């Protein structure tokens, strides 16, 4: 009797969220895999044609998709480096005992809250108009021109905006890591005459390894998934030069109405993200074991 009553409570507490979760995430994920084996234009009255794994084979000869995959990798590598360098630098500055550190932390974190879509629009004005005007005043028009019109520079612009957005977020992770290093260790090194650079390289950086792992993989998967900023800053242009992976999937499905083929891309996208994240979990767990 008591046991039956307990199961009743269990169901009452768990089932409502579980129903929503299964409807919104699990079922669409499964039918998504199913869709990827069909050819369909998304119009309900039109038949879905089973094509087996042809959608997946077609991916390898789709030059727009391969270009998109390549620039996504390029973007992600640049973004991971830039975000972590800027984030770590600010974390080191902000944890030094400067009185302006708190204000700096507040300012640097701010862009993260604004959201990718708005940030893209803010910087669109900076790159397309402010840059051109600065170029005209200073004569430095080899640096200050409209970056968004140039295929390579448009991608660099995206890296800058992404860095601006994420540096504060990553900074928070590094701050937590730095603050967990015992102060005595650093004091002792100071007394022994270690310079700032020596202290960073020999003591702080090695003890920050767990924070590095988290931050690297977090920026890796966030960079790989970028969409909102891509949409508002470049819209994929000029001439598809900055159409990153997520945008390519969206355009394939909703722009070109290739629902089955686009969904096959979406499944590949999932596999890549899953591999990145699982590698992170694996490395973190392995280190935890070694530490014990």
């Amino acid at each position, binding site marked *: 009797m008591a046991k039956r009553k*307990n199961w009743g*409570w*269990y169901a*009452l*507490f*768990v089932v*409502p*969220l*579980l129903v*929503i*979760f299964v*409807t*919104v*995430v699990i*079922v*669409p*994920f499964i039918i*998504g895999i199913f869709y990827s084996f069909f050819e369909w234009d998304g119009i309900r009255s039109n038949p879905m044609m089973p094509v087996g794994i042809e959608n997946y084979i077609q991916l390898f000869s789709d030059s727009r998709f391969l270009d998109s995959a390549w620039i996504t990798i390029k973007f992600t590598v640049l973004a991971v480096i830039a975000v972590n360098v800027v984030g770590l630098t600010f974390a080191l500055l902000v944890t030094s005992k*400067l*009185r*302006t*550190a708190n*204000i*700096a*932390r507040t*300012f*640097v*974190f701010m*862009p993260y809250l604004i*959201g990718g*879509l*708005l940030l893209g*629009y*803010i910087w669109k*004005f*900076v790159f397309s*108009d*402010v840059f051109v*005007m600065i170029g005209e005043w200073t004569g430095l028009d080899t640096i200050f021109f409209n970056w968004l019109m140039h295929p390579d520079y448009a991608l660099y612009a995206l890296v800058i905006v992404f860095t*601006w957005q994420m540096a504060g977020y990553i900074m*928070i*992770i590094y*701050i*937590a890591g730095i603050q967990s290093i015992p102060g005595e260790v650093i004091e002792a090194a100071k007394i022994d005459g270690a310079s700032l650079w020596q202290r960073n390289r020999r003591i702080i950086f090695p003890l920050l390894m767990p924070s590095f792992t988290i931050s690297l993989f977090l920026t890796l998967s966030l960079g790989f998934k970028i*969409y*909102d900023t891509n*949409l508002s800053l470049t819209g994929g242009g000029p001439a598809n030069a900055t159409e990153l992976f*997520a945008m390519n*999937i*969206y355009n394939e*499905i*909703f722009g070109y109405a290739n629902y089955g083929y*686009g969904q096959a891309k*979406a*499944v590949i*996208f*999932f596999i890549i*993200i*899953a591999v990145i994240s*699982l590698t992170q979990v694996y490395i973190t767990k392995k280190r935890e074991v070694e530490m014990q």
Partner: protein
Amino acid sequence: MKRAGKISQEVLLFIVALLFLSPIYIIIVNSFKDRQSLYENVLAFPDSFSLEYYAQAMEKMNFMSALGNSLYITIISVIIIVILSSMTAWMLARNDNILSRIIFMGFIATMLIPFQTIMMPLIQLMNNIMGATGIPMLNSREGLIFMHVGFNSAISVFLYHGFVKSIPISLEEAATIDGASKFGIFWRVIFPILKPITVTVLIINVISIWNDYLLPSLVLRDTALRTIPLSTFYFFGEFTIQWNLAMAGLMLTIIPIVIFYASAQRHIIEGIGEGAVK
């Protein structure tokens, strides 16, 4: 000498931080200028602080309606997420059996799925549900709330689950002996203890739901239902050339975020840090 060095370091850090926010400065000063003075000098201070362009942008973006929609969707979603995910996480953590473990693993595993992988089948499914039952899943704010709850449940259950495990079980046992029901124990004993992690869950969800563009863009069709990111997107689609108006529009959309940040800055930074590291 050493002191002078310290002061210059202070000033340097402050200047770097200010430079970091210089794009925001550009938005602010140009939101008060007319087109001509904007193109004379984008970096200069405006001659006057007229709110003319704010009024125009507000009207063109249908800002008050978008603000209302964003507030409604975010607040209701977050309340439902906090209630349901804390209840679920507590039950799963306190009944450590195979079923609980499978459900919990299910939540965790889906955190790997990017939104683009499920967006199309999700919309198809919602369309089917709508056709079969008549429940307005698409093109309604409540349908969007339903989906936000689904997408944000995994991370929220995960955070609550970890926290519940750190609470000693003896508190609940004492309440059970006193004859309190599970419902009573949860709301009177457990939920108050969960407060720190509730703050984290609240903040993470507010930020992700408030700024979300892609899901609302797929779900909401009517102009009257648009959230702030959606109305910003359509506003820029129509008025890209009138930058002064666009700047005023951007400022309007940033103001609620700044208010939110200013009111709970410490909690936000800590909450985000906690959510990221776990």
